[in-house]
């Protein structure tokens, strides 16, 4: 699996969204991405890439796109 596929899968599985919904998806935009869903998503991303994210990054991860930026910038994950 590519990094993008892993990343997408974390969203699709934890937030129960279709791949087509991912672009532009924002925190609190759908019912499943609330504060509880957020931590499930973070756990899935951490498992997928075997990383431990910083608290600041978890808070800043406020959209599908922002998450990619954070992972590339702070965890050397290329998309």
């Amino acid at each position, binding site marked *: 699996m590519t990094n993008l596929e892993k990343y997408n899968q974390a969203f699709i599985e934890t937030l129960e969204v279709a791949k087509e919904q991912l672009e532009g998806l924002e925190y609190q935009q759908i019912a499943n991405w609330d504060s*509880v869903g957020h931590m499930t998503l973070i756990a899935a991303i951490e498992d997928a890439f075997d990383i431990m994210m910083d*608290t600041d990054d978890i808070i800043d991860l406020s959209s599908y796109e922002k998450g990619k930026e954070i992972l590339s910038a702070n965890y050397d994950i290329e998309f």
Partner: protein
Amino acid sequence: MIDDFYKYNPYELDRSDKNQLLTNELVELTEFHNNRCPEYANFLEAVNYKKNSVNSVEDIPFFPVRLFKEYDLLSVKREDIFKVMTSSGTTGQSVSKIYVDKETAMIQQKVMIRILSDYWGKKRLPMIIVDTPAVLKDRQMFTARGAAILGLQVAAREMVYVLNDDMSLNNEKLDAFFEKYPDQPFIIFGFTFMVWKHFYQELKRNNHKYDMNKAWLMTGGGWKKLEADAVSREKFKNDINEICGIKHFIDHYGMVEQTGCIYAECEYGHLHASIFSDVIIRDFKDFSVCSHGRQGIIQVVSALPHSYPGHSLLTEDEGIVLGEDDCPCGRKGKYVKIIGRMQNAELRGCSDTYADKYRRT
């Protein structure tokens, strides 16, 4: 801009630097709410607010916290609100309604975690929650207790709720926790009354031994009920240390009207104001600023509230500023002692209202 604050550690600035940073932000927030919240604009007019006469934090008008119970106060469009936080209250009491938009919620979360990181570090730690998972499911109970737990999630590697729905202690979950995370720092979080009643007393009764000497016990929610049972803060710490071996205690003071800006306790037992907020003690009769060491009504200011006019509030609590910039723990800023609710003010600490319900059943 709140971003200006993120350049500093939460307890880095001394009196004059903090005053400058915070005053600028509070003046801006006062203008912001003046332009967006009609009720707040009326209040500013009534107190004859003049922007140009503000030289320090003390000059920002203080808005009575009770007004959040009587009015819906918003500085953003209603459709931008994504959660309404309520203060805890027993039946028959009116509750504060605090309207929070995404931006304010994110700032609140970020600031709380920054403050706590100053105590237990930036690493996410496993967390024992002395509460039932139902606290998040049941919307009736979803007040300050639920909000505090949700806010802490970001700092947790994993959260384990150790109370069953009937408030009994779940020993299997505790066993599993200590098996999974042996000999490493972790956090225990709960409201004071619940930690005492449902955690400490149960462990003592069961004679269960767990190694908790690397734990940080974070508590909140008030002391009135425990003090009524003759459990002082000192006794709380001593007894829990004796049975559980816990050495690090972080109590905190905070209110739903200024979520995020918590006042956390240092190793000398002092509650500290971070750069994001401050405490001013006001005289009971004429509301003048009390000197350090004198008891009065607590005013709190915070750089966080954007969606509602809660950046400078006169609370219904009494307290004392113990000192400023000179706590032996090294943290700059004021450190305070909270006396508690004023006489005639409603009983409202989160732990206290829970205890009140508990008593009656």
